[in-house]
């Protein structure tokens, strides 16, 4: 199942494995609003309305539950289906589309009522009261913590701690998760699915049958998604829905199963693991919050879990602090915990842009990123940059974010004048991957080292060089400062060896710090060696072992043909070089593979160890029959039959008792802007989606609201094989530019007829934010879908273009708004209501007049679209 992903176009070389599977008899189904190059070679393309995937997947869940097509042995043993919830829990079925704990005034959930019954009850991750010695957080403080929505923290969201809840393995207790799930998804009938998603009931039935028939003991089904699922105001819940389905079907932790996120950049997985993200520290440790994480003890108390590997949060955190501050970090000073800055809410890139517009954020670094094209509401991005004191752009070439002051769209419209823009801009040429050592982490969590082939020329430098030398200079300038706030930077360990004429820091030495060492400076080989007493340093606990034995493991290149199909001597995957997560689930509770055909790891009773084709993602010598005592904690509390070792209860979560800002179960909500009312619930939108209202970020009316007909179509953004993201690495290359030489929109012949659009001519696409022009491709591959009895036309918009480069065009992101998923603060660019009209857009101030006229016609005010 490929859904929310256009794998053949966006990950063509990875797609070779899909084609190979297909050649061996696998059935490939592509669910997508557009018929793409992936659809062209799939066995079945299912055209779906953009923004309706939860309804579609929820329908499959309902099918599996009501037709007894789930993998019962797996579900009972490995999921929380049997867990009983408290009487306080109320479902969307009871409350008209919201869950218990909803605070409509503040648009936040209190998650207390979502907890398991019995056991040691603890509140949700990152949202717990501080240690008992302190006063509980006030309601206002708690709201600030919730707004941080540290969705990436703990990676799996697994830290909510109910280690020993009440259960009913017959799955019949009315408040057990299984029954709650059944009731919750009962309304996702094939008829409703058809109404909401536009997928004909017969096609939907076929998908249900294929997916369930190809799941179980002998067979597995895999899901593939990409940003087609994440870029929604309910994006995380899209993936949750797939996770529920895959857990029900027994497809997690097994070969040929799972849910694969195909990520779009060479090291975007690495930049999440070792984050340049506001809400986490390396290894998915939460960034400290000003409330609840006041000192190391309260942080540990709040973020540690009683059972599983997150019980060792203190070991991970102290080792990180030691790698940052070395000898200055001691037990007496909380290992310099106080040197860490604190959050007070969401500080994502979109809040930052508003802070730039407001004049609060004065300096901005762009490392290979082009927000003037690649970020939602591109105009707002440029207006933010135009209001800075200084901007540093590190890139290969003069991308739009480097030249907005000179030739940006706002110069043409008259909104900005070059001479009025006070931003000081530094363009620093960057080194290419061939010009530096370092590791990328690919979409399968695998680190691969790339070696320097040639030195960068001229002023081009690696970002390693830039970060190191910038830090060195800042430290030199602050040396001798008596200011206590300068201590964190002066005490920082920052002594990396440099070499060569450019004084390039040694990337391998940085990897050594990331891997960590013991008090003798010897490289660690596993995160299980990390200590809480300050005797180990480790820059990212999940990467511990990447330089085991002092060997650069990501640089391993034993040819694939000389290895088994897992090939785990090529590169190094976190954690502990395991290639399939939670693979203990590939064996039954007794440790035997569910079937020989799907064997991956198993318990070797003679050797008393887990073994198999992959490295077992489990405690190597824990017998399947091991059951922890009542008082067991941490890793000792993991049962020999609980594969999900990062989860507080060892189970796959059908129901998420914590970790999610917007509910324990997925709910179909309409996108922020939709031509349709929510047919499934009274609640139109995700009630806790993040709203960043601003005069430059107006929202449109939705569903039945007055004025929504002004934007009757739905636009969806995407990538093409021939280009890369915001275009900095493709639009400037002759060989790629010539393959897709113009920004275009894709429309159906029906929409073209309705709006008078000419093939290869021009069209203007309008939202409440902006209007852009694109060449028109009229194609049968765009099919109108029938939703709620009405025909909906969708408009396809590849988002690679901007004003610079060999092929130039308007940026699709001009149209997008800032309404974000509340868990991970990602923008909704996959389903945007819009209008489309023939011809080119107006030039100069007339462009602004056009957008204003649409706002007026739709009756848009500051309040429009901001309701819960």
């Amino acid at each position, binding site marked *: 199942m490929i859904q929310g992903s256009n794998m053949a176009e966006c990950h063509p*070389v*990875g797609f*070779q494995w899909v084609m190979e599977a297909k050649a061996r008899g696998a059935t490939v189904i592509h669910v997508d609003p557009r018929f793409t190059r992936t659809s062209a070679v799939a066995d079945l393309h299912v055209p779906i309305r953009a923004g309706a995937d939860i309804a579609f997947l929820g329908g499959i869940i309902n099918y599996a539950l009501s037709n007894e097509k789930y993998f019962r042995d797996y579900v009972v043993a490995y999921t929380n289906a049997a867990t009983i919830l408290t009487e306080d829990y109320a479902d969307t079925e009871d409350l008209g589309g919201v869950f218990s704990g909803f605070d409509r005034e503040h648009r936040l959930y209190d998650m207390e009522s979502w907890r398991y019954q019995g056991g040691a009850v603890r509140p949700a991750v990152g949202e717990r009261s501080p240690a008992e010695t302190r006063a509980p957080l006030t309601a206002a403080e708690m709201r600030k913590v919730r707004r941080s929505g540290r969705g990436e923290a703990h990676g799996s969201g697994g830290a909510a701690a109910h280690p020993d809840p009440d259960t009913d393995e017959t799955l019949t207790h009315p408040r057990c998760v299984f029954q709650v799930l059944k009731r919750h998804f009962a309304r996702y009938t094939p008829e409703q699915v058809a109404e909401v998603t536009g997928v004909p009931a017969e096609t939907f039935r076929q998908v249900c049958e294929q997916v369930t028939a190809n799941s179980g003991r002998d067979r597995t089904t895999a899901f593939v998604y990409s940003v087609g699922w994440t870029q929604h105001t309910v994006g995380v819940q899209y993936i949750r829905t797939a996770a529920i389905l895959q857990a029900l079907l027994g497809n997690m932790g097994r070969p040929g199963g799972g849910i694969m996120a195909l*990520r779009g950049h*060479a090291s975007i997985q*690495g*930049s*999440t*693991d070792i984050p340049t993200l*506001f809400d986490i*520290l390396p290894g998915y440790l939460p*960034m400290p919050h000003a409330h609840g994480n*006041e000192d190391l003890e309260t942080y540990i108390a709040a973020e540690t879990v009683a059972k599983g590997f997150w019980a060792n949060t203190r070991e991970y955190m102290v080792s990180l602090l030691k790698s940052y501050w070395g000898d200055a970090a001691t037990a007496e000073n909380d290992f310099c915990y106080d*040197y860490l*800055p*604190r959050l*007070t809410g969401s*500080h994502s*890139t979109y809040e*930052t842009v508003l802070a730039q517009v407001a004049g*609060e*954020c*004065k300096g901005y670094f*762009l490392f*290979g*990123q082009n927000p003037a094209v690649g970020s939602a509401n591109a105009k707002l991005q440029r207006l933010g940059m135009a209001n800075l004191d*200084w901007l540093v752009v590190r890139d*290969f*070439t*003069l991308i739009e974010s480097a030249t907005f*002051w000179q030739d940006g769209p706002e110069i043409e419209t008259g909104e900005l004048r070059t*001479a009025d*823009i006070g931003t000081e801009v530094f*363009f*620093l040429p960057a080194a290419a991957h*061939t*010009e*530096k050592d*370092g590791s*990328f982490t690919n979409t399968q969590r*695998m680190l691969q*080292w*790339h070696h*320097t082939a040639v030195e960068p020329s001229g*002023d081009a430098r690696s*970002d390693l060089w830039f970060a190191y030398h*910038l*830090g060195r200079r*800042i430290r030199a300038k602050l040396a001798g400062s008596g200011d206590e706030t300068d201590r*964190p*930077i002066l005490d920082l360990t920052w002594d990396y060896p440099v070499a060569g004429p450019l004084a390039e820091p040694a990337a391998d030495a940085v990897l050594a710090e*990331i891997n960590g060492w013991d008090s003798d400076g010897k490289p660690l080989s596993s995160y299980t060696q990390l200590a809480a007493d300050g005797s180990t340093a480790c820059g990212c606990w999940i990467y511990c072992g990447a330089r085991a034995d002092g060997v650069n493991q990501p*640089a391993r*290149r034993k040819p*694939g043909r000389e290895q088994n199909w897992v090939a785990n001597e090529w590169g190094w995957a976190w954690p502990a070089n395991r290639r399939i997560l939670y693979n203990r689930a590939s064996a039954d509770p007794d440790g035997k593979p569910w079937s020989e055909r799907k064997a991956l790891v198993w318990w070797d009773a003679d050797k008393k160890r887990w073994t198999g084709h992959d490295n077992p993602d489990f405690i190597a010598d824990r017998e399947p029959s091991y059951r922890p005592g009542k008082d067991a904690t941490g890793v000792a509390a993991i049962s020999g039959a609980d594969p999900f070792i990062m989860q507080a209860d060892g189970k796959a979560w059908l129901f998420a008792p914590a970790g999610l800002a917007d509910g324990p179960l997925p709910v179909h909500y309409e996108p922020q802007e939709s031509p349709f009312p929510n047919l499934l619930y009274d609640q139109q939108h995700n009630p806790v989606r993040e709203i960043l209202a601003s005069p430059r970020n107006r929202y449109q009316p939705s569903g039945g609201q007055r004025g929504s007909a002004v934007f009757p179509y739905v636009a969806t953004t995407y990538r093409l094989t021939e280009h890369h*993201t915001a275009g900095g690495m493709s639009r400037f*290359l002759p*060989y*790629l530019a010539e393959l897709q030489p113009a920004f275009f929109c894709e429309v159906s012949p029906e929409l073209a007829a309705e709006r008078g659009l000419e093939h290869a001519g021009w069209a203007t696409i309008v939202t409440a934010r902006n209007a852009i022009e694109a060449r028109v491709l009229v194609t049968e591959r765009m099919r109108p879908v029938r939703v709620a009895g009405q025909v909906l036309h969708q408009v396809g918009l590849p988002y690679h273009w901007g004003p610079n480069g060999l092929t130039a065009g308007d940026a699709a992101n001009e149209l997008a708004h800032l309404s974000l998923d509340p868990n991970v603060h*990602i923008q909704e660019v996959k389903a945007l209501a819009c209008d489309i009209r023939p011809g080119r857009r107006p030039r100069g101030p007339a462009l602004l007049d056009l957008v204003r006229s649409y706002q007026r016609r739709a009756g848009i005010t500051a309040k429009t679209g901001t309701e819960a």
Partner: protein
Amino acid sequence: MGVRTWIEGWPVYRQFSGDDGLGRGAAAKSRVTAGLAPRTRTADKVVKSVCPYCAVGCGQNVYVSGGEVTQIEGDPDSPVSRGRLCPKGSASLQLTTGPQRRHRVLYRRPHGTGWEPLDLDTAMDMIADRVIAARRQGWQDEVDGALTRRTMGIASLGGATLDNEENYLIKKLFTALGAIQIENQARI
């Protein structure tokens, strides 16, 4: 070149004297054609690398001759990609060696109307000064009575195309500076 060699190299001579009576094969082969060799054969070194575009992580072999990258193609050893590359990966040579690449620092002064040259050392020094100033200006020791020890004056975006080691240093440095608005494409 001796006369004999010259004559023997002459296509018509070869045509008459060899099996290629039509002169469209062996006899017609020019000296240049006969001497053709793939530029990868003469590379000084082949460096193992990874494609810098999407996250599949295809293996690349980077061929270097005379200090220049002369060819980049798929690494057949990679169990991920088996030597294959998509059009973007196949354009890696142009990406890394093409004329679009800038090699010099450029500077735009406040309210300036054009770029100016600036040497790298001066640029780094100016940036360090600006970081220190913006950090101070945006410093928040506490917010609403709660300790924050942070600066809201500096933000950063980017990292998804960077190496882990680069991201590690960026996060470490900016966190020590107290900057929290540190983000990358993973958010987007």
